[in-house]
């Protein structure tokens, strides 16, 4: 005991440093547990803080102009987006119908899904990452609302036209399909959860590219059927969804590496979540392709840059997709 001597500040600092070193070497779950346990402390003041932050951002972006900047451009972009989504949902509807027809004989046993097998938990962003390296946000709901790691987070499309179409109380399925992906839950405590935004370097998701058909600019693609490949003009009947893997670039967008060059993906095409999960069998729009570049190492591949549909730097009200009957992610 004498060796320990008097408990001086120096010894306290040395002890804390040693303890911190040991803690940093523990598995990632320990860090997640500590972080999520203490994050509810930030939530009460974070709410008005985020309100103020977003109000300031809006004011700064409109500084020096009487008309909010970007309005005409936004309308053009919105029109293009809805045009693309309409085509996508037409294709998706046909695909679903074909699937439904193929399993009609089993309909009595299993029955077709009539609604989204998930609940939508509304949440509010109460804080962001302290440092600009990563892109995560803290939301004010947690495990008490069945929010768990791996669940997807979306933002409702705020367009008045879409809201009018959906009505006062839209079904969860309608809300999800008219939403845009924000990210996924990575940590959850009792009252708060941390959401990794789609633009974060660590975010990764299987997705589909949907090519928009523009009669003014027909494009030629390679269609493979079995062992044979042929060059054809893209039309509604041969426009299939292209499976890709998308990840955040850490700079406000997403990147798709190694997309096939012969699929002739162009700027403006849509990126949508794959919707392959049995718990959430719907695709959620992610973003639009803004740039297509050749892969210098492989002429058969291209690299896509994608801009998210949702403005992830200004998102405040979000919806967490909580699959029913399962605590695990979709």
């Amino acid at each position, binding site marked *: 005991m004498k060796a320990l001597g008097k408990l001086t500040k120096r010894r306290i600092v040395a002890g804390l440093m040693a303890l911190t070193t040991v803690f*940093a070497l523990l598995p990632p779950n320990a860090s997640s547990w500590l972080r999520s346990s203490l994050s509810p402390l930030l939530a009460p003041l*974070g709410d008005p803080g985020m309100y103020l932050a977003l109000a300031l951002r809006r004011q700064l972006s409109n500084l020096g102009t009487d008309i909010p900047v970007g309005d005409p451009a936004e309308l053009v972009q919105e029109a293009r987006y809805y045009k693309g989504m309409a085509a996508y949902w037409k294709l998706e509807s046909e695909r679903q119908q074909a699937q439904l027809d193929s399993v009609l004989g089993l309909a009595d046993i299993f029955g077709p899904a009539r609604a989204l097998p998930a609940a939508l938990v509304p949440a509010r962003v109460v804080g962001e990452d302290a*440092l600009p390296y990563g*892109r995560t946000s803290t939301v004010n709901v947690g495990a008490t609302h069945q929010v768990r790691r791996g669940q997807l987070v979306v933002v409702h499309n705020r367009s008045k036209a879409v809201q009018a179409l959906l009505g006062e109380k839209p079904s969860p399925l309608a809300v999800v399909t008219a939403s845009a992906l924000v990210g996924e839950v990575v940590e959850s405590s009792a009252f708060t959860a941390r959401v990794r935004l789609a633009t974060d370097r660590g975010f990764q998701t299987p997705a589909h590219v949907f090519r928009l058909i523009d009669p003014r600019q027909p494009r030629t693609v390679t269609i493979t059927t079995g062992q044979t490949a042929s060059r054809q003009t893209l039309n509604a009947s041969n426009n299939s969804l292209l499976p890709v893997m998308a990840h955040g670039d850490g700079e406000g967008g997403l990147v798709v590496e190694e997309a096939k060059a012969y699929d002739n993906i162009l700027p403006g095409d849509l990126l949508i979540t794959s919707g392959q999960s049995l718990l959430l069998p719907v695709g959620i729009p992610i973003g639009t392709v803004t740039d297509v570049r050749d892969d210098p190492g492989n002429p058969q591949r291209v690299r896509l840059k994608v801009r998210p549909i949702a403005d992830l730097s200004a998102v405040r009200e979000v919806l967490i997709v909580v699959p029913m009957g399962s605590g695990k992610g979709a």
Partner: protein
Amino acid sequence: MRWIPFAILVYLVIQLQTTVGKVLTVQQTAIGPIGPDLAAIVAAFLAIHLRGAADVGLACWALGLAVDLATGSGVGAVTKVGPMALTYGLAGMVVYRMRDAFFRERIVSQALLALAFAGTAHLLWVFLQVMLVGQWRFWWGATQQAVALAVYTALAAPLGYRLLERVQRWVILAPMGRGRRMRR
């Protein structure tokens, strides 16, 4: 050092940094988003003004831990808690050792000491995080961001110091006076 007001100051700074402080973040296409580390400004201020080395170490460690707890990602994976507390503590000691070579009333000195603090803390943090989570492919990008962040923080530091001087007497019991010898 008055530890209860200090704890309130840490809470408010982290709250500010995770909400309103994000307004100061700028998007730089080549590097990525760059924003000032407000907690580093407070830590550098304390490293310049506190009397004892142990107080500096303890205060910087606490601020670093708070930043660690409020940071969820950055190097391609969920970040570990602890490295920022260690690097803040270390950077605090670096500034504590350097401070006698500077006139702390000068804006340039304040900015240089803040640069030393933020540079040391963030470059080491990036290295430690990348090493701990094993995502070396993000090291170069995050290092560039760390350098830019340190410069931004240094530029914002003199303004931060003006504000902190107003609350200094609430937090620091007996600030180090000019010409006094350091108490080790």
